[in-house]
């Protein structure tokens, strides 16, 4: 019962405090970003700047192909402002690319320079073959340059024939890709639950320390673990509320909600226990700031691997935010791996319990510090 009363009191205090509303505000900001800033899917079409300096028949044939692949079959005249100059271009838009056709090679150079994109001027060489002149930015990789050279060394028809002759088979038939919007949710939930929870519980402890409240609590018939757990429960509840503020409007009924709640509770518990442990080593929030900052940076590294899958060193899997991110992803996927989430939940519960026991032991001995 003492834990319950402490929890109610913490809830009352947090509802009257600053941090609770920061968390709600952050959740609302995240929701606005997810709904109105991040598109359902980012536009992955390439933007190309081209100048076609071919004789009229060849030029018409090439532009005819461009027009055939155009989504609406209409060439748009687009004026692009480059510094103080306005350059007129013809714009073609297909499912795979957006092409701006420059009126002259000098316009092409200006466009490539101002838009920081490669440009290509197509002409005929002395032998009457197509000649490609690429204007690059200078930072392109050698791989890309090699690709340009290969594509320019053979005619497009034979290249296409070669491509069509290749057989491509997926290793996994049920591989599901999240939309770009849904894909950002696991990172936001990890930030909201783990990072904020860790920081805010440490802030709560330091506030109580500075006000001497922890001493007053220590001379009651209640225990330190009840005091600490009441804060963990409040943080976990706040995490659930703020996470649902983002998830429900953004994803509707897509996630597995029972699994989501379980994972929010266990990961929130783990992050709170980590915050409690950090707070036991320092006297004030200022003193602990470096440690918390380093922890947050370390916890952010798996986010890089999450968004750039080609960078995923083995060691990064041992950073707790890695399984947190993957767990949230599995929860959102239609055919997510529930066993992964359950196993990770068990792991976070056990790890959180150990951290909690350790921090309880440390706080018991540091009440007057």
């Amino acid at each position, binding site marked *: *019962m*003492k834990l319950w*009363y*402490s929890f109610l*009191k913490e809830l*009352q*205090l947090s509802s*009257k*405090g600053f941090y609770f509303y920061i968390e709600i505000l952050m959740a609302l900001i995240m929701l606005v970003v997810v709904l109105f800033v991040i598109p359902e899917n980012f536009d992955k079409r390439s933007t190309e700047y081209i100048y076609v300096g071919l004789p009229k028949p060849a030029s018409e044939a090439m532009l005819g192909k461009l027009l055939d692949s155009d989504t609406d079959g209409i060439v748009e005249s687009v004026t692009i402002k480059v510094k103080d100059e306005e350059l007129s271009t013809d714009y073609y838009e297909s499912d795979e690319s957006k092409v701006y056709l420059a009126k002259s090679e000098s316009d092409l150079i200006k466009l490539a320079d101002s838009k920081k994109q490669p440009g290509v001027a197509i002409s005929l060489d002395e032998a009457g073959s197509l000649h490609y002149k690429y204007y690059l930015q200078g930072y392109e990789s050698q791989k890309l340059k090699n690709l340009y050279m290969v594509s320019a060394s053979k005619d497009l028809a034979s290249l296409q024939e070669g491509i069509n002759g290749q057989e491509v088979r997926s290793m996994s038939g049920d591989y599901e890709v999240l939309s770009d919007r849904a894909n950002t949710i696991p990172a936001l939930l990890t930030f909201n639950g783990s990072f904020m929870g860790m920081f805010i519980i440490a802030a709560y402890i330091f506030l109580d320390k500075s*006000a*001497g*409240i922890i*001493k*007053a*609590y*220590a*001379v*009651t*018939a*209640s*225990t330190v673990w009840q005091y600490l757990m009441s804060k963990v429960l409040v943080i976990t509840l706040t995490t659930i509320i703020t996470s649902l503020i983002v998830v429900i409007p953004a994803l509707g009924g897509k996630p597995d909600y029972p699994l989501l709640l379980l994972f929010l509770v266990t990961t929130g518990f783990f992050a709170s226990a980590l915050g409690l442990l950090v707070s036991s080593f320092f006297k004030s929030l200022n003193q602990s700031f470096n440690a918390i900052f380093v922890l947050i940076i370390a916890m952010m590294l798996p986010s890089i691997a999450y968004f750039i899958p080609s960078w995923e060193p083995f060691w990064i899997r041992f950073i707790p935010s890695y399984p947190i991110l993957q767990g949230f992803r599995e929860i959102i996927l239609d055919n997510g791996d529930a066993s992964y989430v359950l196993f990770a939940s068990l792991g976070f519960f056990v790890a959180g319990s150990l951290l909690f026991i350790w921090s309880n032991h440390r706080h018991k*001995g540091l*009440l*007057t510090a």
Partner: protein
Amino acid sequence: MIKVKNLYHSYSRDERYAVKDVSFEIEKGEIFGFLGPSGAGKSTTQGILSGLLRLQKGEVTVAGYNVKKISNKMFNQIGMSFEQSNVYNKLTARENLAFYRKLFDVETRDPDELLELVGLADKAKVKAGEFSKGMKHRLTFARSMINNPSIWFLDEPTTGLDPAIAATIKDIIWDQKKREVTTFLTTHNMFIADELCNRVAFIVDGEVRLIDSPRSLKLQYGSRFVDIEYIGGNGLVKESLSTVDDKDRARIKHIIDNNEIQTMHTKEATLEEIFIKVTGRGLI
């Protein structure tokens, strides 16, 4: 109710002791003053007795509980009023007390009754954050009685309070004594100690130099003289006479019998003077 034997404590865990070889016993219902200047070891001793600091060396029992292995049940019998007010600023006075009463396993006092006692009844619904320093101090003081403690730790209970409120606090302490509450009072205010305490201990540099009742100390260390002002044949006369010398005693009687006494004071030493005489140190 409280037994302390050969108590040592070092914050640096070496030979630099904040408290050295301190021993004393406090009987049930006694008000025991622990007096000394800042940094003398008063708060350290109180911290160990109240379980806020871990016992490193020595033997301490409080209400029959060995402080080496503190049981939470011990805190049902303890009340503690801190020198620095430590209440929840975002809760009202009543909410503060109502929350703390739920943390004990014994019968507790009604928050409104306690607020009435310390003169905060009309502030029950006001957030503690809006209180003055003195009001917060009174709320902290009231909280220390919420569980009807049999052992009461008071750290500078009247510091920063105006005389009227301080008098109320002293009355409450007297009232608690009537209820046989054992009080451990740490202060550097010798007047409070003189007024309230059955016995006092002088502590300096972590060592207890003396334990005795204020009265006994005054008798032991005070100059036993009486200053008399009376109307003599040539107007106002002042004399200082010994209360132990037979000749002076007879002279006092003669003056009282034959003259109009204007003023008569025993020259008692104050507790502060005795402290300085015994320890060689001031209280600041």
